[in-house]
């Protein structure tokens, strides 16, 4: 999933990117320990409301459709394996199937918010705020800045193939996988190696690696929106944990 190049101006777009990342990291750990349907329903509903703040209902619909397709395939194979092994719970279709689905959906909602409401600049600024060592910070910036450039390179490669009346698609990947890789990936690798050389020369000339620290070009300060999101998250997580413990008793 790609980050956006342009920011919106809704509530969720004003939330600091570090708040969104912190929230997703805490939730990625918490979600593993929640295994009661009631607590998962609560966290899922909260995450769904959080994702709805994006107002990208079409994207949400497509995302959920993809998750449902993936789970349907998994369930089909799960059913087949269950039938073959004739194990306990074979062909299980009750609500226990829903628990892994809810876990994946919760994380998808959180991921969607980061992907659709974070700009490249805000991410770079937040990384600067973290004051990471240059050998970690610099490759991260290279990745963030280079992903759009690589996407463009791939478009050029596809266009050059079209000029020669060659098309790399689903059929060619299945029937001519090696040829498809040669046509699509090899030029991209060579282009990446060249770009890497050019960028390292530019970094040397500008003395980026020798600089003592990174300057800030904008302040990263938490606002009212961050406070509201964090307080809501703490309340939901606490309620989820209480429900989990309550159900266990």
């Amino acid at each position, binding site marked *: 999933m790609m980050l956006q190049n342009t920011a919106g101006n809704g509530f969720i777009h004003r939330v600091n990117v570090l708040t969104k990342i912190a929230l997703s990291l805490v939730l990625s750990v918490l979600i593993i320990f929640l295994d009661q349907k009631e607590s998962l329903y609560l966290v899922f509903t909260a995450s769904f409301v959080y994702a709805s703040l994006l107002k990208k209902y079409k994207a949400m619909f497509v995302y959920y459709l993809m998750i449902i397709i993936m789970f349907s395939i998994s369930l089909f194979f799960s059913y087949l394996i269950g039938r073959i092994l004739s194990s306990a719970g074979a062909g299980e279709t009750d609500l226990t199937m829903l628990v892994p689905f809810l876990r994946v959906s919760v994380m998808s909602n959180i991921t969607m918010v980061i992907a659709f409401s974070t700009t490249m600049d805000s*991410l770079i600024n937040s990384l600067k705020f973290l004051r990471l060592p240059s050998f*970690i910070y610099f490759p991260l910036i290279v990745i963030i800045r*280079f992903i759009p450039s*690589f996407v463009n390179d791939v478009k050029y490669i596809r266009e050059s193939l079209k000029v020669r009346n060659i098309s790399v698609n689903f059929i060619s990947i299945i029937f001519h996988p090696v040829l498809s890789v040669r046509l699509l*990936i090899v030029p991209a690798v060579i282009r990446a190696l060249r770009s890497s050389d050019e960028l390292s020369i530019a970094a*040397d000339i500008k003395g980026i*690696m020798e600089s003592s620290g990174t300057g800030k070009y904008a302040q990263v300060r938490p606002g009212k929106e961050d406070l509201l999101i964090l307080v809501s998250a703490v309340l939901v997580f606490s309620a989820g944990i209480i429900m989990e413990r309550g159900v266990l008793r």
Partner: protein
Amino acid sequence: MGKKRKYWESWEIVSIGTFAALIRISSFLVSITGGGMNPVAMILKNLIATSLLVILLYRVRKYGVLSLYVLINSIMTMVMMGRGMMMAPCALLAGLIGDWLIVMLGGYRSTAAVLVGVGFYETAYRIVSLGLGYFFMRENINLLYFAVVTVSIGYIGCIAGIFTGMHFSRELKHAGIIRL
């Protein structure tokens, strides 16, 4: 008075970033073109990712390159996708052991050492992924069997990728694009 020389040179750092981006884009591209759950696309995706990792190791021959790549990749996954928090420490440990194995078996100039190091990292990464997958799908263990099949198909591509990466590195050396 000479200034203390930094361990990582700028071109090495840039190469790691560039390859991390390239691996992401290539895998995404093959997944989209190949239709996601298609086994050929799954093998190809892993083959390309591992090949590019081997090329990176041939290009930047310095202790810690695999670990730094894993660290950068983990941070990127956490920052951009908001996941991988549980996976990151285990992946970093696998990367460190992979680097250590390469040095112990003859260094980054030894083909066999790079093969073993990358092979160990990829294997350990998949085992840890499945372990984590178990926690996500523990309510219905049959779902995990499907994940095992998917990961195993990808692993075939991974193993093939080690050899294609070596072959590709030699080709790039002949073309004068990387120094071996």
